């Protein structure tokens, strides 16, 4: 079974512990309110050191573990016992966990360094963009720590802690920018939509924990759950996964979350938050494997999300929104791979996506920083003035579209090959039609992805500039180096599949008992590779041809009447508003009225009635002498009558 880490065991808690400590200390720093004379005050410097040190420390720990962990290791201690249900505090590390932890720490470090330059008041800024840097950096540290807790958690309750703390950190960071009036609403939406999914997640965990008598992942995986419990629990977990990983129908928060500062978008999209859902399913995959119904639901969700995201990305004018929808779509590839029973392919795509999406967001941030807008209709021709950013974006977009030999090519190919095997040969635990669904959606997605990636590149970097007054330039060092360094894994991570230590770690079996019974080869060289390549060329070629006809106009004009539909993502926001938000607020108002007038009205009414009754009786008793005397005599008469009647009767 599992073995401990020996002398290295004390090392593991440091992985989330270092960023956690950095975050908690950072929250105590003075938040430097308005009126701080310069951006370079002391609190800011301390915050920078803390943030960078926390992320760098986590990265070092992750790298140290990466060299040591190539098999499943566990360790745990009792956290609390609630009436016989054990909750433990422990870690569960395998090759996948340390790889993902490394990716998380790398992106976090890049984001911390990048933010130093990005959230600094420039000479021309009329507003202080950075006047609350300490809480910002501290929240990134907490965010990182929470994701690392999810990655190493050996207990479902512990996983839930990291899971939800991430939600609140995303809420805080999305609302950071006080110049954007839409930011608070976007932040609330991000937390609430994911929280709605987490209702299911909590119930799923409760079902599994109650069934197994323990929340420890090893116990939950080892326990022989009844089929009904397993299917119900997996479906409930999927609700939480859909929320965190922005899967249809809970994907609506992700594009709005673009109101957050660009480095935060990179953090949320690349390594934390959206990756958590996919990772959690992969972690618990032995359960899902035994619940084909849940896998089928996941497959449908994945196919819809994949195409929905890709199509919505085609019509956006905001460069960050294009990238946001592309994330939705790419996560769809990962969940699709999970649905057809290939968690290894999903995790491989997760890692390569982490690299190229972080790269793309940070490069987009450099563009936004330089031109002062996020709208592509006001960019153009930046290739000459921002060569570094251009080449890095080119690498990122190539990887996103799946251009060989960049990372995305290999990982997306792995997903498509798994789906193809499931569709044609019925391989894997899911029904065959799920394979077909995921495969066809994935192939169509390749063409659409190539189309919008090409459009983004052309609209931003080619043609003539559409803001003649600006003088864009490549970003300063603190922003340039993270972008450049992220370009390396974005380009080369795919080739790591040929490197045995990497391949062994990522395709390690999830439980010690389970053999390597599913398809673990990461790379699929063969004629099947050609189909996505052809589709890629078609997509890119169509976009290029459209642009060539008129370099000033947006290629999105060819979408015709579909353009506004895609731009508003099939109006699902409105649907959500009509079906959920408005009924809930109406219900809330009704509940308040009912409570105040009904329940409390009854109480107040009782009080008033008692007072009124007392008043009435008192008034009756305040009678003039003749009536009072008549009353007394009438009473005496009645009593006498009663005595006579009763006495006579007996």
């Amino acid at each position, binding site marked *: 079974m599992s073995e401990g880490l020996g002398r290295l065991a004390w090392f593991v808690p440091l992985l989330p512990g270092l960023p956690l400590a950095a975050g908690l200390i950072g929250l105590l720093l003075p938040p430097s309110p308005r009126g701080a004379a310069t951006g370079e005050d002391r609190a800011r410097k301390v915050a920078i050191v803390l943030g960078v040190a926390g992320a760098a420390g986590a990265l070092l720990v992750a790298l140290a573990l990466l060299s040591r962990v190539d098999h499943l290791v566990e360790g745990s201690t009792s956290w609390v016992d609630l009436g016989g249900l054990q909750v433990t505090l422990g870690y569960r590390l395998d090759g996948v966990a340390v790889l993902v932890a490394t990716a998380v720490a790398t992106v976090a470090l890049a984001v911390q360094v990048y933010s130093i330059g990005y959230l600094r008041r420039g000479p021309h800024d009329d507003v202080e963009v950075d006047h609350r840097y300490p809480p910002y950096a501290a929240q990134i540290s907490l965010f990182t720590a929470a994701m690392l807790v999810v990655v190493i958690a050996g207990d479902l309750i512990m996983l839930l802690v990291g899971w939800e703390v991430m939600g609140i950190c995303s809420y805080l960071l999305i609302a950071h920018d006080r110049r954007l*009036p839409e930011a608070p609403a976007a932040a609330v939406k991000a937390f609430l939509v994911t929280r709605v999914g987490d209702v299911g997640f909590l119930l799923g965990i409760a079902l599994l924990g109650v069934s197994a008598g323990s929340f420890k992942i090893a116990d939950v995986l080892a326990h022989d759950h009844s089929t009904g419990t397993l299917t119900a629990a997996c479906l409930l977990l999927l609700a939480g996964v859909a929320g965190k990983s922005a899967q249809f129908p809970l994907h609506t928060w992700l594009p709005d979350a673009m109101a957050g500062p660009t480095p935060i978008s990179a953090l949320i999209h690349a390594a934390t938050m959206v990756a958590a859902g996919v990772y959690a399913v992969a972690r618990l995959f032995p359960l899902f494997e035994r619940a084909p119904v849940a896998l089928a639901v996941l497959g449908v969700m994945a196919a819809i999300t994949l195409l929905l995201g890709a199509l919505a990305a085609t019509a956006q004018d905001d460069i960050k929104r294009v990238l946001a929808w592309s994330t939705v779509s790419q996560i769809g590839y990962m969940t699709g791979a999970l649905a057809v029973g290939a968690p290894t392919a999903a995790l491989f795509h997760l890692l390569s996506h982490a690299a190229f999406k972080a790269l793309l967001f940070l490069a987009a941030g450099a563009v936004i920083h330089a031109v002062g807008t996020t709208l592509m209709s006001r960019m153009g021709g930046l290739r000459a003035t921002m060569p570094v950013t251009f080449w890095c974006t080119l690498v990122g977009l190539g990887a996103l579209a799946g251009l060989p030999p960049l990372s995305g090519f290999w990982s997306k190919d792995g997903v498509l090959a798994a789906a193809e095997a499931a569709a044609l040969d019925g391989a894997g635990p899911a029904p065959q039609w799920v394979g077909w669904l995921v495969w066809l959606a994935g192939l169509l997605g390749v063409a659409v992805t190539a189309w919008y990636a090409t459009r983004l590149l052309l609209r931003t970097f080619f043609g003539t500039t559409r803001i003649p007054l600006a003088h864009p330039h490549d970003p300063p060092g603190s922003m340039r180096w993270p972008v450049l360094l992220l370009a390396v894994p974005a380009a080369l991570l795919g080739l790591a599949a040929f490197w045995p230590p990497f391949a062994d770690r990522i395709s390690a079996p999830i439980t010690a008992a389970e053999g390597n019974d599913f398809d673990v080869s990461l790379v699929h060289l063969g004629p099947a590779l050609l189909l996505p390549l052809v589709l890629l060329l078609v997509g890119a070629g169509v976009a290029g041809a459209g642009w060539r006809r008129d370099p000033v106009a947006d290629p999105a004009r060819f979408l015709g009447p579909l353009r506004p539909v895609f731009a508003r993502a099939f109006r699902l926001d409105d649907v959500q508003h009509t079906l959920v938000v408005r009924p809930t607020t109406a219900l809330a108002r009704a509940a308040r009225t009912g409570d105040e007038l009904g329940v409390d009205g009854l109480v107040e009414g009782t009080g008033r009635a008692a007072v009124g009754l007392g008043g009435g009786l008192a008034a009756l008793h305040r009678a003039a002498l003749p009536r009072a005397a008549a009353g007394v005599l009438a009473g005496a008469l009645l009593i006498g009558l009663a005595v006579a009647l009763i006495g006579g009767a007996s």
Partner: protein
Amino acid sequence: MRFGQFLLVAVLAVPALGAVAVAAIRPDRVARVVGTVAAALTLLGTLPLAGGDHGWFGYGPRPAVQPWHQLDLPWVPGLDLRFHLGVDGISWPLVVLTALLTLLCCGYTLWRVPDGGSGRALVALLLVVEVGILGTFLALDLVLFFLFFEVVLLPMYVIIAGWGGDDRRRAARKFALYTLFGSVLLLVGVYVVVAAAGTADLVTLTGGAGLSRGTQLAAFTLLALAFAVKSPLWPLHSWLPDAHTQAPTVGSVILAGVLLKMGTYGLIRVAVGVAPEGARWAAPVLGVLAVTAILIGSLVCLAQDELKRLIAYSSVGHMGFVLLGVATLTATGIQAALIGNIAHGVITGLLFFLAGAVKDRTHTGTLAELSGLRETAPRLAGLLGFAAVASLGLPGLAGFWGEAFAVVAAVRRGGGLWTTLAVLAAIGGALTAAYFLRLLRQVTHGRPSSAVGRLAPGLAGAELTAWAPLVLLALAVGLAPALVLGYASGPVDALVGVLR
């Protein structure tokens, strides 16, 4: 008299003597200092109570209540009344919480006395309230329990009516009359039990003590109704929003922090303990009402437009989770209820402190007139955010354990009804998040309103001193729930044992 028995008496005597001393000392400030010292000594006295005899080493069946320390003296021999005090893992966390919150409130009063009366009178009343609440948690005699339960009522009435907001008299009257109505039921319930069993000793009574089924059903109904008013359980809650909103800050903190816990504690220790068969019979009704409270409480909060009123209504929802835990009658559920009690006391105490600070500074509690707090008072906004996030049950903070495990307990109970209740309660958790985020969005985000715009960014030292322990406790209990539950599993298992 052993040390533990001495402590039991001291914990009640010190605040009582303190109240007398505060009332006797003329200079206002000195009196308040004396009162705060008395509250501090009381807190110091409660801490070593934990160091008692925790195991059961005797022969024969394990009794359902095994106090760590107890003191059993004849009191009114003619009526067979006994002065019987004791403390165990169920009551000790509540005792410490009461002593802590009273100390913080007295300390806060050193810095600021709300308008309406002298500071020393307020401190004296707070100490009297503390005596009543501590006595309720410590009493192991049913009649004594009832007496302490009632001691709290009048001083609290005076605090609300004397130092409260504009509509204070009406709110105080409603509070007193409504809870008196509950007390009448409690009195009848107590005498139904005492008359049928021939004893008022809770240690003997716990487990049914040979009461007939009919008596148990009647007793549970009466007792549960009485405690439901105090807790409060929907639909008997409507005294709470008015009382909490109109009470001065320290009054709201005590009300929400510990006064409500008398109801849930009484439900666990007295109603469920004395009439287990009645509890089993009424559990589904209790569960349904608890979940209704969660949903209605959250929905009303979602449509609420006054800061303190919103927090007051949030108590209805949170206590719904606690009552759901009790209603499952499982060890998991009762432990969840215990930690939920403590977490709610800490977090809602903090929320009322913060709401009081906002109202004192801006002179308004209307949400529409508040916005942009994070621009002008970032620390206050940050603390309000922390308290709200803790209150919405974020895992890793104190509020999580009680709410999540009330749901887990309902799932564990199984069957159609309890599973449905678990699902609805979990949805209530999402609604809780919705109204707290709406609160934060209105109060902290956006451009500063005119009321918020003139705020100074700093916080007074007294405020930080009063709030810091609560912030730390919310974090500590969240990270180490064993702080509260470490000693609870024995007594809870014993209690659940008699329920079977």
